[in-house]
């Protein structure tokens, strides 16, 4: 098929959508803003379709052209689609959540003051899409800040809710600190290499650290820069020991924002991590130490996330700790990047795609149930199997996938991660990972047991709107499709044809 639209049109379209929504918010005469979100969902999903007809930028851009900052490869396109789809689903959640939101923001009428809540995710989406394509430290930093500043606002959106404000302040302070680390680390790397473009940094450092190169003897300086960057990205992906903000922020933020944070922020952090690791791991002088740091991070994250998730009673908090655990599995694949680059990259992308589907599904059900049960503790889900079998089934699928039951996306993601770890010979990581999976079965199945075996405290059936029902159904189907027939998404990730990866 002839491809005629340059890829950056997608970002521009998303930005224009955001601006139009701002205008609608300012000038619309209707008090209820929910129509804005419905239009935005339609446009975002249409853009996912359009993304298949885009052309990559010129192969050899002129010096000084903006393409030096912006690359379009298979991974970038996949992440752009992930960002668009995630934002659309987050807006569906926001619609479902708007009655709760209205209670905690200043406003007298239903729907007043919610316009920005639909508008900010769209701008964050544009930031995520820029980040997916960023190959220069400057654009990486700017796009990361766009995303993070949007999240600061969204986390603190429920102004009359003390927990939401507290979460916002915590996130702001720790986020600003981590940004400082990132910039300081990039400064060290720039000081050594003289470039900010990742390819040029890589070339300069590889040549500089080769035997007899001008940089020999400066390994400590480079390692210092790399560690600062890793610390900053550790904050973004919620890896231990930089995870302190996660439980409070996840619990305090409005639930759609929690879902967006756990998917969008994590996906963005990992794509940047993979891009910078490709540079760092290309330098033999520091490769061993970077891998050792990643292994350490992965082990700490897996142990912390899985063990602290076990005693949780609040579902949002449980998902917060489990999201730390999932960062740990992804870090296993990152640690395998140098030994098995193709396999590990594929594992990271596929795991993130699957994680997106199952996390969004679980949060969509969580919002619907929590609104009608007035609470998001596990006990509020007791007897969901009797109150609404459809939602209970959807939640079971999401949780089974998060735990990693065969035939689901989550299982295949973990399988690919462990496969790349075997290829890299990281057997200690596999051991800790399997321990984590075992712990995961315990805390995830606690929720399933509550839904089917506990007696409900409140027997009123739970109703689901048509839009939410459609998306819940679609996501359930997607969990199984990705788990049974992953070829389409894996084919997208690599130029080489992949057939039956799971059955080797």
């Amino acid at each position, binding site marked *: 098929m002839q491809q005629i639209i340059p890829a950056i049109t997608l970002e521009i379209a998303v*930005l224009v959508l955001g601006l139009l929504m*701002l205008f609608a918010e300012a000038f619309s005469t209707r008090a209820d803003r929910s129509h804005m979100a419905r239009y935005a969902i339609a446009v975002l999903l249409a853009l996912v379709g359009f993304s298949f007809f885009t052309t990559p930028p010129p192969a050899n851009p002129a010096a*000084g052209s*903006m393409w*030096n*900052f*912006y690359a379009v490869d298979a991974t970038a396109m996949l992440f752009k689609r992930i960002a668009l789809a995630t934002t659309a689903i987050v807006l569906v959640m926001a619609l479902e959540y708007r009655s709760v939101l209205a209670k905690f923001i*200043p*406003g*007298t009428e239903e729907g*007043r*003051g919610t316009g*920005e809540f639909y*508008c*900010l995710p769209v*701008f*964050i989406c*544009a*930031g995520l899409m*820029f980040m997916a394509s960023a190959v*220069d430290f*400057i*654009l990486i930093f*700017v*796009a990361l*800040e*766009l995303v993070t*500043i*949007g999240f*600061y*606002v969204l986390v*603190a*959106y429920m*102004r009359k809710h003390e927990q939401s404000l507290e979460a*916002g302040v915590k996130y702001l302070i720790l986020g600003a600190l981590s940004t400082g680390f990132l910039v300081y680390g990039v400064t060290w790397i720039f000081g*050594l290499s003289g470039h900010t473009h990742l390819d040029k940094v890589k070339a300069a450092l590889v040549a500089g650290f080769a035997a007899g190169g001008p*940089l020999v*003897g*400066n390994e*400590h*300086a480079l390692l*210092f820069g790399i560690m600062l960057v890793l610390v900053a990205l550790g904050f973004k992906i919620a890896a231990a020991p930089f995870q302190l903000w996660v439980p409070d922020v996840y619990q305090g933020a409005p639930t759609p924002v929690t879902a967006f944070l756990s998917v969008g922020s994590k996906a963005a952090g990992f794509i940047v991590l993979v891009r910078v690791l490709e540079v760092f791991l290309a330098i033999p002088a520091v490769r061993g130490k970077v891998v050792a740091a990643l292994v350490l991070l992965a082990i700490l994250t897996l142990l912390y996330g899985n063990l602290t998730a076990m005693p949780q009673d609040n579902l949002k908090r449980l998902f917060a700790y489990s999201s730390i655990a999932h960062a740990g599995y992804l870090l296993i694949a990152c640690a395998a990047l140098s030994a098995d680059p193709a396999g590990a990259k594929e594992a990271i992308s596929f795991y993130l795609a699957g994680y997106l589907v199952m996390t969004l599904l679980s949060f969509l059900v969580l919002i619907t149930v929590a609104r009608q049960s007035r609470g998001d503790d596990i006990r509020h889900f007791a007897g969901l199997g009797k109150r609404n079998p459809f939602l209970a089934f959807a939640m079971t699928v999401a949780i089974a996938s998060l735990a990693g039951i065969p035939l689901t996306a989550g299982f295949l993601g973990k399988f690919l991660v462990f496969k790349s770890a075997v290829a890299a010979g990281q057997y200690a990581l596999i051991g800790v990972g399997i321990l984590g999976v075992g712990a995961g079965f315990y805390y995830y199945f606690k929720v399933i047991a509550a839904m089917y075996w506990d007696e409900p405290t409140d027997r009123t059936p739970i109703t689901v709107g048509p839009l939410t029902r459609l998306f819940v159904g679609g996501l359930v189907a997607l969990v199984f499709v990705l788990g049974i027939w992953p070829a389409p998404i894996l084919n997208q990730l690599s130029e080489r044809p992949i057939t039956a990866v799971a059955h080797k």
Partner: protein
Amino acid sequence: MNPILFYLFSILMLGFGIAVVANRNPVASAMSLVVSFFCLAALYVGLDAYFLASIQVVVYAGAVMVLFLFIIMLLDLKAEQRRKFNKLAIGGGALVALAFAAQLVGVLGSHPRGDKPFPELKLPVGESLNDLQHVGETLFSLHTLPFQVIGVLILVATIGVIVISKRELK
């Protein structure tokens, strides 16, 4: 730049930076920040970055600090002066900061490149150093894309401020 001037301004900048955090009175903190910004501007001058230095004074020491002071006056922050500090948190924070400083000293000590002075900038004959022009050219030609994304970033920050601070709608 004369090393004596460099160390003088660096020490002043860091000292007043510590004063920003240590002062109990928010107005005193803000004024320390102004001095710190001025010392940073002096360091920029020492690096021949005159445009950056003037921007530092006009934007940071001028506009941003006036806003800070306005907000401090409007909010009338008394609680900060009465606040008790958590000794454990301060101890832990100091420990992390010290560990970081020790690392930094270690890295700088083992950093052979740090011993050499910067090479002299070679300008084409007949051209003087015009950093305003260079900053403009870099910003608006080479770095257009990040520059435009910053525009979006500032828009989002503005929306955020309005959302978080707007009054009860009537």
